[in-house]
Structures are given as C-alpha cells and as structure tokens.
C-alpha cells in the first residue's frame, strides 16, 4: 500500500504541535495555583535526569565503552569549565577516538 505521506506529516504535526502549544495558550489565560507552579518548576530537573539515564551510556549501541567515556569526559570537564560547546565537542572527540581505536 502506498501511504499518503502528506496526510501522515500533517497528522503528526497536529499531535506534536498541540502538546507543545497548549500549555502556553492556557497559561496566558489562566492563573496557576501555587502548588502547580511549584510542580512545574521541578520539571526541568526531573526531565534532565530521565533524559540522561539510562540512555546516555548506551547511546553508541555496539560500543558502550566509547559513549561512556565520552559522557564521563563531559561530566568532568563541565565540572571545571562552564563552556557547553567545548564540552560537547570534547565529548564527541573522546567518543570518536575511543570508538576508532576499538575498530569497526
């Protein structure tokens, strides 16, 4: 069967965009209670932990050692320096070097 890809794209746009936009729309028109505001303020921290674990260490499928060392580099480097860009480039370089040495 040949899909109607355009319909899929538009449908996916709707179900992706509505969850992104709705909260902004609601918050412009409603005042949130204090407890809810407090709940919302913890979301970035709660999301960050879940975005990193467990996926980060297995992000390089067949070479977990390479991605793990890259992530460890990022952890140590960002402890001492605030530059996010260099942290990212450094982690990529470490991962790449280790992965290349491991072969494949």
């Amino acid at each position, binding site marked *: 069967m040949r899909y109607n890809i355009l319909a899929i794209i538009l449908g996916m746009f709707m179900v992706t965009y509505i*969850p992104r936009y709705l909260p902004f729309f609601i918050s412009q028109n409603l005042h949130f209670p204090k407890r809810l505001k407090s709940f919302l303020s913890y979301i970035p*921290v709660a999301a*960050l932990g879940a975005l990193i674990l*467990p996926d980060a260490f297995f992000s390089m499928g067949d070479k977990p050692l390479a991605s793990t060392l890259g992530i460890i580099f990022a952890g140590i480097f960002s402890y001492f320096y605030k530059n*996010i860009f260099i942290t990212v480039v450094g982690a990529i370089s470490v991962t790449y070097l280790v992965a290349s040495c491991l072969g494949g």
Partner: protein
Amino acid sequence: MKTESLKDGVRSGLPIAMGYFPIAMTFGVLSKTAGVSMGESFLFSAIVYAGASQFMALNMIMIGSSFTQILIATLLLNLRHFLMSASLSQRMKVVDKRLLPIISFGITDEAFSVASAREGDICPLYFIFLHLTAYLSWIVGTWTGFLAGELLPPVLTSSMVVGLYALFVALLVPQLKGSYRVSFLVILSGIVNTAIKSSGYIPRGWDIVLTITIVSAIGVLLEEKLDKEEDNIDEI
C-alpha cells in the same frame, strides 16, 4: 537588547545544532530506505520537527502500520513536551502573544533543557534565535542526508549523537554543585526512569512522562516538608 538575545540564542543553539545534524542526516538516509521522497522527507523535518517520532514514523511506515496507529504513537511519544511547555510558560516574561505559536513550535527536549538552565526570566527573542539555530541544522541535515547519503563515516555520526547526551550532562553538572535537593531529584529521576524502562510494562514515551510527574511531585512534597520544618525551627 536585541543583539544580546541574538548572540545568546545562537550560542545556546550551537551545541544543539551540532548534535542534531548527524541525527537529521541519518533521518534523510533512512527516508530513502522507507520509500519516502526527498520533498516528503524535508517536510517531515520542517513541519513535524520531532526527532524520535520521525524515526518511529519511518519504521511504522515500513512495517505497514495504519495512519491512526502512527498518530497515536506520535502523540504518546511527544506528550512529554506538554509538561516541558507548561514549565517554560511560567518562566517567560510577559510576551507578545503572536510569538507564542512560534516559540512553542521549537520546544524539543534539548531546547527545553538549555533554556530552563538559564537563570531568571527567559526572553522570547532568545528563544526565537535558539530555535532557529537548532531548526536550521535539523532541516539542512535532513537534506544533506537524503542527497549525500553516508557523507560522514558511521563511527563519526554515532559519536556525534553522544554529543546531545554530553549537552544534557553539561547542563546538569553546574546544578549539582548548587543544591542537595536538586542533586537528589536528578539522581532519583535517573533511577526511576531506568527502573520504569527496564520493567518493560510502560509503553515508550510514557516512561519519561511518568518519571517527570513522579519526581516533580516528590520535589513539591519535599519542598513543603522542608519549609514546614524550617518554620518550626524558627518558632523554637
């Protein structure tokens, strides 16, 4: 003021752009395999702009899932952005309402995490430039992938993907130095998410929604309990 936002937004967006590019290229390459045309592949990235669900859609197209199945799976996968947008909406200065549809379009895990890590209120223009930087990389990457295929060696591409996790780590570490409560919640969130994921009972996409909800609620309870204790100490 405007140039400040421009500089800040682009600077924040660059590490994201760097991580998006190889992923978008992979999407371009896979589109071809799934029988999606170049125009369609481009529209996926330009209109849907949601990494994981685009890959999932290609996969579902290849295995012959129905239209409805694809949409429901996409909705489940992206529901986490509802929580993220809700959180960000509280951090914005009073904004020109016309900018909100654009700002919300660009909310991804990465844009959300980078913007949230900033202190104080977030300026809408900052968002626009942050989004633009990440978005351009996503689109150009898709195109490059479709046209040039495996331009980069696979080892380099998969190493570059690690960059996005390095980005999250770089956002996290300064916060760990600050407060015990934050450190506790982040570690808890990692553990809860790992546990939920490996249990295998929760469908993909719901795991992170569940984790964020549980951990944020614990954050609120902890805050209320600790503040109460502080009040008691004050009274003594």
